């Protein structure tokens, strides 16, 4: 027997078997849904009817390769490559199904991805996630990976491959509104985050210094978090309208009872707790001996704070910011309910018209944004942790 490690494992991989089962079911389920217009029920088509014979063959062979790779291939890098290739082929061919199924010159017919597509995408993403988790990539590679995935997505959208799919049909008739709401969504999520950091971090430092303040502030913020978000959004309408009407100049800088202002204030209120409490925890976790050493070196209180405490607490504060950003990107959708704009507008319009494509137009960008920011900020937190450890050693 040779001692050289083999590329293939002798026993089938348990996860691989699970993924194979998912892919098998996904192949049987309909790949695409063809409807005469955007709201009537449609006809569900399996792979071999949704695509021309040649493309259907390519897809099935590609899926087969992915399944074999995930059951017997041992090297995570190769499994990752295989699964990413599979996802790319699935995405491109889904777009082709749109062109193939739409009758020429028909603007009303809608082709949308069906259960089979989503299950296949889920199964392949499981393989990608598992391979990535096992490879334990350095943070910098994870950041590059997210950027590459973003470029790939933009290329796919720009190439017009998906133009015949229903979600993009919805986009084409309201592209101006889409970008306006996208801008509003980002403004809400990042604006409230910046305000929460500007106020929350100093507040956290104050709480760390004054224990009595700490319990009062944290208790209050905890209670704010238990009030449901839609109620907070709604309750802010009246006070803000009052401020706009009574305080001179408030209306001129955009304060008003409807629109973005209540949404912004509500997101800010929700963001404060994670920022303040993580700042307190981060500062409390700085080991006492390190603080003593800083004073022993002759540092003043202020110097010790800036040179030792802040850098050491930074990763924990950054984790709080990560929580807030992901939470805000999700919560900003609720602004759509009170006229605050954002992607939620499409979600709620879509629910009102029972138009799934329109819901997807609002939901997909939100999910992609939230997941991408989570992965990016997790990587940045890890980088800051290793530099904090270096500070501690120095």
């Amino acid at each position, binding site marked *: 027997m040779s001692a050289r490690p083999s590329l293939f494992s002798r026993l089938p991989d348990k996860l691989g078997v699970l993924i194979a089962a998912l892919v098998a079911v996904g192949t049987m389920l309909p790949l695409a849904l063809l409807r005469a217009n955007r709201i009537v029920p449609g006809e569900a088509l399996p792979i071999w009817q949704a695509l021309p014979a040649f493309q259907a063959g390519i897809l099935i062979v590609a899926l087969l390769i992915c399944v074999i790779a995930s059951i017997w291939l041992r090297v995570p890098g190769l499994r990752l490559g295989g699964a990413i290739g599979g996802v790319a082929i699935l995405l491109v061919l889904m777009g082709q199904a749109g062109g193939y199924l739409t009758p020429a010159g028909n603007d009303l017919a809608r082709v949308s991805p069906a259960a089979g597509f989503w299950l296949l995408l889920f199964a392949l993403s499981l393989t990608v*996630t598992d391979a990535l988790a096992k490879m334990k990539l350095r943070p910098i590679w994870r950041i590059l990976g997210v950027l590459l995935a973003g470029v790939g997505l933009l290329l796919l959208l720009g190439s017009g491959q998906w133009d015949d799919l229903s979600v993009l049909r919805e986009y084409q008739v309201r592209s101006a509104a889409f970008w306006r709401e996208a801008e509003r969504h980002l403004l809400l999520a990042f604006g409230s985050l910046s305000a929460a950091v500007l106020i929350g971090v100093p507040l956290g430092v104050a709480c760390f210094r004054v224990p009595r303040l700490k319990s009062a502030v944290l208790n209050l913020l905890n209670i704010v978090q238990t009030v*449901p978000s839609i109620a907070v959004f709604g309750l802010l309408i009246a006070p803000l309208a009052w401020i706009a009407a009574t305080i001179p100049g408030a209306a001129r800088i955009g304060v008003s009872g409807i629109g973005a202002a209540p949404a912004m204030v509500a997101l800010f209120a929700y963001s404060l707790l994670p920022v303040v409490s993580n700042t307190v925890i981060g500062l409390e976790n700085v080991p006492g001996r390190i603080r003593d050493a800083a004073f022993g070196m002759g540092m003043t209180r202020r110097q010790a704070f800036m040179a030792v405490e802040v850098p050491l607490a930074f990763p924990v504060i950054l984790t709080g910011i990560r929580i807030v950003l992901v939470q805000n990107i999700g919560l900003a959708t609720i602004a759509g309910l009170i006229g605050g704009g954002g992607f939620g507008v499409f979600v709620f319009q879509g629910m009102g018209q029972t138009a799934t494509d329109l819901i997807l137009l609002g939901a997909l960008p939100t999910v992609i944004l939230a997941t991408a920011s989570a992965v990016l900020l997790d990587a940045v937190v890890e980088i800051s942790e290793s530099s904090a450890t270096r500070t501690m050693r120095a």
Partner: protein
Amino acid sequence: MSMAILIRLAMLALLAVFLVQPEVFAPFFALFTTRGAPPIYVQSDLLSLALNHMAIVVTAVLGATVIAVGLAVLVTRPNWSEFLPLSRALANIGQTFPPIAVLALAVPAMGFGNGPTLVALFLYGLLPIFENTMTGLSNLPPTVQEAARGMGMSDRQRLWQVELPLAMPVILGGVRLSTVIAISTATIGSTVAARTLGEVIIAGLLSNNIAFILQGGLVVGAIAVLVHDGFVALERRMSRRAGQG
């Protein structure tokens, strides 16, 4: 009886009176209405809304507890450790999905009503319980594990009689987090016609009636605070018992 307990009892009493006899509070909520709008939501019975709200929350959190604890126990066994990185990553990614997106996307598949809310709350509940169970199971004192093995306990006996009871306070902490999040998130379910207290808030948003928004928000907030404190008390008692046992 301490001050803290008295405040909570008073809160519970207020909540109970409000759910059974909301008209008692009409003069208070009338302060927030304009042009003679109704101060109290009467379109449906508040008590039945609250009960249905809690039924959805309890069902979703129970489901999430069974799956998340089961999964955490499974991936901490040596034979199934290859699933550990994946399940951790999945629970993490599941948490980044905005609840409103999960709700909206579940509607085409399940129709309007309680179903989509159950799914969203279930998905949202998984991560805190999973993470806490993992922490609880992996931070057991090695001496206790050794002692249990030395007494000749089988793997299964150790899991049920030693590992799970010792990890219970930490697991409960995860269940508490999930429950409190679920109580507040369930209100969003009313945008897709789930019968929850969110109905009151949404009625207020639609008819521009602050009193409705306020009473809906206060009731849900009060329930969340009481449930949170109940869990904390239970955890304290459990960890005291785990420490003695």
